[in-house]
């Protein structure tokens, strides 16, 4: 699956995108975020508090309970501040 990170999520993880296999037993965005959170101190900082974070699946806003699959493009980012 393709993972994208924006704004301070990108800075904390140290990368804008990466391709990873869907972790076993990982069915929704919340599962994925909790797996990512244990990868490093930076990832822990980015994914430690989901209330500060938003996500999209295949370029559409998604809730933490949304189901994910191997072919998805998943993005994590802070609440948006455009306009």
């Amino acid at each position: 699956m393709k993972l994208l990170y924006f704004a301070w999520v990108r800075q904390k993880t140290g990368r804008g995108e990466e391709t990873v296999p869907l972790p076993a037993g990982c069915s929704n965005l919340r599962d994925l975020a909790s797996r990512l959170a244990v990868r490093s101190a930076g990832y822990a900082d980015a994914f430690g508090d989901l209330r500060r974070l938003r996500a999209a699946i295949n370029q559409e806003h998604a809730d933490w309970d949304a189901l994910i699959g191997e072919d998805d493009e998943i993005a994590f980012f802070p609440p948006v501040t455009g306009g």
Partner: protein
Amino acid sequence: MKTRIAIQCEPFDAAAEIAGLSDGAGAVATFTGFVRREGDLATLRLEHYPGMTEREIARHIGEAQARWPLLAATVVHRVGSLKPGEPIVFVGTAALHRREAFAACEFLMDYLKTRAPFWKEETRAGVTRWVDAKATDDHAAARWKQ
């Protein structure tokens, strides 16, 4: 309906955007946002999620079109590095009458603020930080759901 969505680093020409909207319309409503001149704000930098940004804006325009009889809609949003006083966003809507044009313009702007994937980073006195989202913007967008 005529739709134009542009995400660009360059400044935009509001007069040219209005000219592109006015064909056959009785009313064109526009909103232009500028980077506020606030104290020691030196630079505002915007990043976005290419692909999702355009899709999200197109979805909002579609929703506006379902609510009001629009003839045309334009959204231009700048990204990259901007200085205080520079124009940052343009939203224009065209309809036969002013009420629909005004309402759709405000609707699009409220949704742009809360749903389109843009992020602002500001630099003040040499210190750079990400701008926090505002609850007031969420409340403004939530009005349209009532």
